[in-house]
């Protein structure tokens, strides 16, 4: 204690505290016991507002994509990982492919009894010269049934998305007219020549589906293309004379119903080992191969209408 220290400093020293405890002046617990009551919860409007403002500020910052560095970084990172992933996928697939059976050779698992029977007995069993057509419309007709319904459901979704109601349709029509090439002479002239040719070609493809390359889908697509060309050349006014939504609806309905019922009959008889009454006909003739031709026609109709409908929907949102 040779040099005098100020009291406040002295009171902080360990010695002082020790001495206080020694002499019984200090209690370890006293400070703990006399506590103030806990505050009741008070809804604080100010704080809430401030919180809200802060929240907004944060949100602004988050959505400020131009200046958000971390977002940029994240994008970069995302892209980099995606690219890496894709490179990895390429490598993986290439490796896989390198182990696959050699293409073009005969002795592969693919060329087994299944393909053999299709080729050897296909003509006999389905009556279709085009083995592929026979396969997809008879051997594996269930897939094809599904496939046509994929198309159907896609049309439905497009309708849901793009079909407009009455008033919207009128507006859309007005705006559409503005962009429509009106009375484009060259187009109309060419169309006059080409459309029948295209449609006839399409019909040919459909009808020969079981005899050669082609079939309902390809033919229908060609016909659809012809219709689209016609629409482009002559406008909705002209097409609506023979093709409206109603037409589309009923054509689709009848085609698909026919498809469904026909195939159901075929499946049912097949599964129950019943005799099917549908004649196979002479291989090579147009009217041959049992249900394949009618089914091709049905599919063709559906596809043609659908292609046209897609176009009309995309362009205007209605027929």
């Amino acid at each position: 204690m040779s040099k005098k220290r100020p009291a406040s400093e002295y009171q902080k020293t360990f010695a002082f505290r020790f001495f206080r405890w020694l002499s019984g002046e200090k209690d370890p617990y006293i400070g703990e016991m006399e506590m103030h009551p806990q505050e009741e919860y008070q809804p604080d409007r100010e704080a809430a507002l401030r919180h809200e403002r802060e929240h907004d500020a944060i949100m602004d910052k988050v959505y400020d994509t131009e200046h958000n560095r971390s977002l940029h970084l994240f994008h970069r990172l995302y892209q980099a990982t995606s690219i890496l992933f894709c490179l990895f996928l390429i490598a993986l697939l290439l490796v896989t492919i390198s182990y696959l059976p050699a293409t073009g050779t005969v002795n592969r698992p693919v060329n087994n009894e299944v393909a053999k029977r299709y080729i050897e007995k296909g003509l006999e069993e389905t009556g279709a010269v085009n083995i592929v057509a026979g396969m997809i419309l008879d051997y594996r007709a269930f897939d094809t049934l599904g496939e046509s319904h994929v198309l159907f459901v896609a049309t439905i979704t497009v309708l849901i998305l793009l079909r407009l109601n009455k008033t919207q349709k009128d507006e859309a029509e007005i705006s559409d007219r503005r962009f429509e090439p009106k009375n484009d002479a060259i187009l109309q002239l060419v169309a006059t020549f080409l459309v029948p040719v295209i449609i006839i070609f399409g019909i040919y493809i459909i009808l020969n589906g079981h005899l050669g390359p082609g079939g309902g889908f390809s033919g229908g697509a060609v016909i659809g293309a012809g219709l689209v060309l016609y629409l482009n050349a002559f406008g909705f006014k002209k097409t609506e004379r023979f093709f409206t939504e109603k037409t589309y609806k009923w054509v689709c309905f009848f085609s698909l119903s026919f498809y469904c019922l026909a195939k159901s009959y075929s499946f049912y008889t097949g599964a129950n080992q019943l005799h099917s009454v549908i004649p196979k006909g002479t291989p090579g003739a147009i009217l041959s191969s049992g249900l394949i031709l009618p089914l091709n026609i049905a599919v063709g109709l559906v596809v043609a209408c659908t292609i046209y409908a897609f176009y009309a929907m995309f362009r205007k949102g209605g027929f």
Partner: protein
Amino acid sequence: MYFILLSIFFPILAGLFLLIRFRTPLSGEKAGTDRKPLLVLTGIFLVITAVFAFAAPLTAREGFTLFYLTETLPIYFRIDSVGQLFSLLAVIVLLCAGFFSFSYMKHEERESRYYGFYLILFGVLNALCFAGNLITFYLFFELLTLSSMPLVLHNGSREAIMAGLKYLFYSLCGAYGALFGIYFLYQSCDTLTFTAGGVLKETAVTQHGGFLLLTAFVMLLGFGVKAGMFPMHAWLPTAHPVAPAPASAVLSAVIVKAGVLAVVRITGYIFGTGFLRGTWVQTVWMCLTLITVFMGSMLAYREPVLKKRLAYSTVSQLSYILFGLAVMNEASLVGSLFQVLAHGFVKAALFLCAGAIIYKTGKTRVEEMRGIGKEMPLTMWCWTIASLGLVGIPPTGGFVSKWYLALGSLKSGLPVLDVLGPIILLVSALLTAGYLLPLTIHGFFPGGDYDYSGLQKKEPRKLMTVPILILTSLPVVIGLFPDTIAGIILMAVKGR
């Protein structure tokens, strides 16, 4: 047997009766006029209790079981000489302080509460002295804490309440430390009945003797709290200044002795001195007591508030006793028990003197008390004699006890401590003289520049002075017949 029970339960019931019968009105005004019935009743109860307590040892010396807490935990009472010694001290001090407080408590509120708890305390103390096993002892040790706490915080100020709580928690802390030991002892002892020489199982000692030593140490520390031993002494200087003076007297003279009694019981009657002697426990314990002795005196020496100074003094003096117990030979034990008596009477007398001063003059600090001897000569004479007793000037009891203590220590043959102990005791005695006698000197010889004009006779009433006189005379009496008393004690120690 009945007297034991009566000496225990009569005051407790009487206290409860007082508490309920004399419920003070809530408005908080003083009871004032209708003090008399309360005082009379209390006086009667006190005397009856004292009679019972004196009669108890005369009528029954074999133990009996009151009831069983659980199948293996009897509440068992038995009177032996040590208990009797403590009981003697307790009864005398409580009687004197009780009568002293009749006039002292005039300026305090809620007297009935004070007397109620005072009586309960009386009963509990009796029970403590007569307790025949550790569980019973523990039970009443806890109750002692609880019933004495209201006395400490009686005056109701914030400091008083805090001090009361502090006292409570320190004591409980100690009690729980002891309980920790009891838990283990129960498994390592044949019985928990107090038996001279200890009750430890042989197997337990051989198996985990080390752990038992730790247990003993924890118990010593725990009970040492009550006796104000070093690390847990801090409650004493806080509790004494705020308590009413008679309560302080009881606290300092008797209640802290309960801690001593506990230590006697566990060292002598549970563990047995043979088990503890020469172990690290003894060494550490002695060191702690010596530290306490010295520290208490030093703190007292630099303390300006009178009652606090006395409290520090109690800390220091009690550790004389504990030191003696820690030495664990016959001489030191005699010294300790002698010191119990001597210190008990002396400290009670000192506190009552201080109380008288406070009651009459309201002065609490030592430097305010210049010339007090002129105002209250009788009180100051008593103070002086008692001080001399505490310092250990022959022919007072203090001298005898210190003599025996030093003797025991020197005979113990412990390394270093056997000499260091007496030296520290001596130094402490000097310090004691240093902090007690200045009051006498300044009180009687306030110095040349002192203005005598403001002085007036302030000698208190007889109800106050008589107890002080009795208490002052007793240490002198035992100091005059040291051999007799020591012989009795020796008999008690041997015949345990």
